[in-house]
């Protein structure tokens, strides 16, 4: 129940942000779904105490892979899906908390939030790289398999000719 609520809230927020940054209308629903799914994963991982960095990394990898798929399917650039998608994860709230605590001279709270900002932003960056890595690996494997099949086919063809 709580999971469903989180999904819908994050999805609605993603669509809202999509409207602010003016993404094409036909991409809104897909972007919202991507944002909702990834936030739910992130939230669930945080609930079972897997840590901020790992959760953000996993959620971002999911976002990037789903965006890649959606981008190919709808023939739109990938950033239309992944920028709104990362909005629930992005450390904007922490960045604001950091500055606020600095301004109110609560330095230890401020440092705590500063570290969180670095941790999350870094995880998101690496998550995108990770998705690119998975995608390239997958493509490479498919190409290699195809070549292998063709080679074995031509080999068997040669064999039959000889016979």
């Amino acid at each position, binding site marked *: 129940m*709580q999971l469903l*609520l*989180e999904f*819908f*809230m*994050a999805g*609605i*927020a993603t*669509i*809202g*942000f*999509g*409207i*602010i*940054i*003016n*993404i*094409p209308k036909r991409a809104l629903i897909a972007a919202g779904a991507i944002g909702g799914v990834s*936030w739910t994963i992130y*939230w669930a991982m945080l609930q079972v105490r897997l840590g901020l960095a790992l959760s953000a990394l996993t959620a971002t990898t999911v976002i990037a892979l789903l965006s890649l798929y959606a981008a190919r399917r709808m023939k*739109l*650039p990938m*950033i*239309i899906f992944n*920028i709104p998608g*990362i*909005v*629930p994860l*992005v*450390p*904007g*709230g922490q*960045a*604001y*908390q*950091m*500055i*606020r605590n*600095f*301004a*109110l001279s609560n330095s230890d709270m401020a440092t705590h939030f500063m570290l969180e*900002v670095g941790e999350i*932003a*870094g995880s*998101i*960056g*690496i998550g*995108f*790289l990770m998705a690119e890595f998975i995608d390239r690996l997958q493509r490479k494997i498919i190409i290699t398999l195809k070549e292998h099949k063709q080679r074995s086919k031509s080999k068997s063809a040669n064999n039959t000719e000889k016979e």
Partner: protein
Amino acid sequence: MIETNQIVINTCLLAGRIMIENGSEMSRAEDTMKRIAMNSGVNNLKIFGTITGIIVSIPNSMDSQVEGINRRAIDLEKVSAVNTFSRRYAAKDITLEEFYEKLNTLDEATPSFPFWLQVIGAALVSGPLMTAFSGNMVDLGITTLTGALGYTLFYFVNRILNIKYISEFFASIIIGIIAVFAVRWGWGHSIDDIIIGSVMPLVPGVPLTNAVRDILNGHLVSGPARGIEALLSACAIGFGIAFVFRFL
């Protein structure tokens, strides 16, 4: 040939500027520029791109041009439009001159989502995101309202005065004042939740993340520059809220 080179360079620069201005990462912009050049028969286009300006040159013909980039926002419709035109150009659907023409009209076009819809977008970001963060259902309504008001103020100050960071500062002051009084008069429960939700449409989370992605992609000049810009707007917002807390 000289004429065509001139047009190729101009088109590349315009496409690159539109993409960087509207929130694309550096690697995507450079990739698009290289593709446009390649499809026009220029195979060795050299690009030096940063977040504040691009230099493009064709080595053999000694042609080069500089284009400055003064403002940065996020408008993904434009980025996607540049991509579409580039794809159509690659498919020989439009000529280079038409491409340049289209980019020019795109550059001057206004956002296609009207203002009221953007305010609704801001409202949708602030309330639901706050609930997703904290599970706090009680403050959903007041946060949605405060977020919409803050964004409206941000939008108008930005449009009328056009000074960077001041619009964020004023918007966050208003958000802070509303949050404090809402809790004081019993319309809301948690000041912190209301404020965090309401500043969500304004906070520079996406530029911050883009900064990290640029750095990881090896754009060591653009990444930190983007990060500083994001930090400055976070400062404007944080100081606005801190300002309210000092006096109320």
